[in-house]
């Protein structure tokens, strides 16, 4: 069980951690002092380019230029956020697809490991119900519940042995001896009939 849950847990942890730090590192990088300064410079350069290319519309009021630069910068920040969001969504899509596949595989694997032994136990109980005490549970190598199955098989073997002995004693010619032996055997067994 641990062989499955531990890797799944680790993968989840790495994916979520990576995603978290990935997003924040991009945001921090996009808004680092250096990058903000660069963006500010580029915003004002973009406005200057516009003014140089369309001089007729140019009003060289520094405050107007400042507002236009701020608008450009705002536009740029929206682009940066949109990019981060898009990139995150893209990255999330692939990571979640992988995670989903892993979870699906894990679920199938685990359910097989647990459901398989239960089925075998159920089959053994059916056999017992029918009176066949030779029935045993044979789990697969990687199934869950191997120790329980072993104990169960041990208990069944003992019961099978007792019933076999009792069955053999019924064939004894000396009835009083047979009854004594049966009593001895049954004295080791506790049932609802006991006081």
């Amino acid at each position, binding site marked *: 069980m641990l062989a499955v849950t531990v890797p799944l847990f680790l993968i989840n942890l790495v994916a979520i951690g990576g995603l978290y730090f990935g997003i924040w590192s991009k945001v921090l990088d996009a808004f680092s002092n250096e990058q903000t300064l660069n963006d500010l410079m580029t915003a004002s350069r973009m406005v200057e380019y516009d*003014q140089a290319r369309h001089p007729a519309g140019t009003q060289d009021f520094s405050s107007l230029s400042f507002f236009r630069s701020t608008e450009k910068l705002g536009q740029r920040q929206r682009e940066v956020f949109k990019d981060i969001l898009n990139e995150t969504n893209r990255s999330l899509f692939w990571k979640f697809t992988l995670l989903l596949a892993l979870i699906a595989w894990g679920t199938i694997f685990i359910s097989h490991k647990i459901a398989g032994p239960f089925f075998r136990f159920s089959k053994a109980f059916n056999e017992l119900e029918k009176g066949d005490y030779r029935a045993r549970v044979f789990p697969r190598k990687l199934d869950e519940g191997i120790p329980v199955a072993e104990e169960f098989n041990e208990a069944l073997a003992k019961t099978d042995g007792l019933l076999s002995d009792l069955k053999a004693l019924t064939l004894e010619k000396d009835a009083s001896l047979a009854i004594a032996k049966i009593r001895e055997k049954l004295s080791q067994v506790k049932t609802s009939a006991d006081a």
Partner: protein
Amino acid sequence: MLKRLTFFSLSLLLILSFAPPYLPAFEPTPEDRELLNKIEKDTCQYFTHYSDKITGLTKDSSRAGSPTSVAATGFALAAYAIAGSRGWISRDHAYSRILTTLQMLRHKAAQQEGFFYHFLDSRTGKRVWGSEASSIDTALAVAGALLAAQYYPGTEVDSLAREIYERVNWKWMMNGSDFLCMGWTPESKFLPYYWDSYNELMVLVALAVGSPTFPVPPKAWERWLRPVGDYNSHKVIYASTGALFTYQFSHAYIDFRELDDQGINFFENSREATLANRDYSMSFSGHYKSYSGSSWGLSSSVGPGGYKAYGGKPGGGIQDGTIAPYAALSSIAFTPELSTQAARFFFDHYEKELYGNFGFKDAFNLDKGWWATEYLGIDQGITLLMLENYLNSESVWKKFMALPAIQKWIALTGLNSRSASAVRKP
């Protein structure tokens, strides 16, 4: 001996008489030629250094945080082809860089009707900074792609460049008007600006008219305004800003020397504009330490107060003592002597502050003790291509003029060969 001398003189006369009439006869000294070659090679390295190794997209500026610019990427395509042909990088390496870039432009770079967005993310090619799908920047990218294709005919580079060009719906960019619109954004659709008056538009309109898939009618070439201005006896069809680059960009690719446009020769026009620009800055030489006969070049560039459309007269004439060395250098085809002299002056006097690994930095202003610390991609590009034309047998012009699209544009617009007509100044 006399016979030999006579023969030599006659031969020289014959050679000179066949020389292009507008290429002023000036031969730089071996030292100057060496300097110009060094500048060209160093400038070229901007593109190998500041282009993304995976996508090929080129940074708009060497400044940290700068996005990539599609116009700079176009110049990069030309730069790789030139570098490969000059042996600065191996031909195979140049091919591979061009191929990577073209694949990015063809398949991933954000575009609308084939028009690339002005600024792109270097890794994803997505539109950034809310930029517009730009007609001029797309034209510069396409021009670079077509030029690179000329260096590698019949290859994947060739077919990709053609696909990129043929995808551009130039007609759509006219938005039902007579002129090409400057751009389009998903938010506001077509910008309220059109290429309706002289400036760097010529290469754009030429490619649009010559398009094999979505050509614009020749009237898009004929109808833009050709305003005539005069400064210091230099009569010029002028751009509104008077920025020198507007007289240079189209000439990086198109050889206008032999083209006559309604009596105007735009090569001659750019020469006059360069002289007027120089005269204009010299008229302020008493006010600003940066300006002199050897230190000139008013063009859009970074300055102490940010990027401005500096320029001369006729035109806006914005100046504050800032000189853009690239502007003087990029006029080398028009004013070889003056441009060489300026290059020598800038290098000899300001090498420490102004010259770096990638050639001259964008600008300087002595009065404010200000030196640009950055290179701009398009300014590097124009410098490189103009120097290549000047130093390497007009190789860019020859390859670009051979394009069927350019031949189609010439035929459709009636740009007669100038040799057949008299020389007419604007």
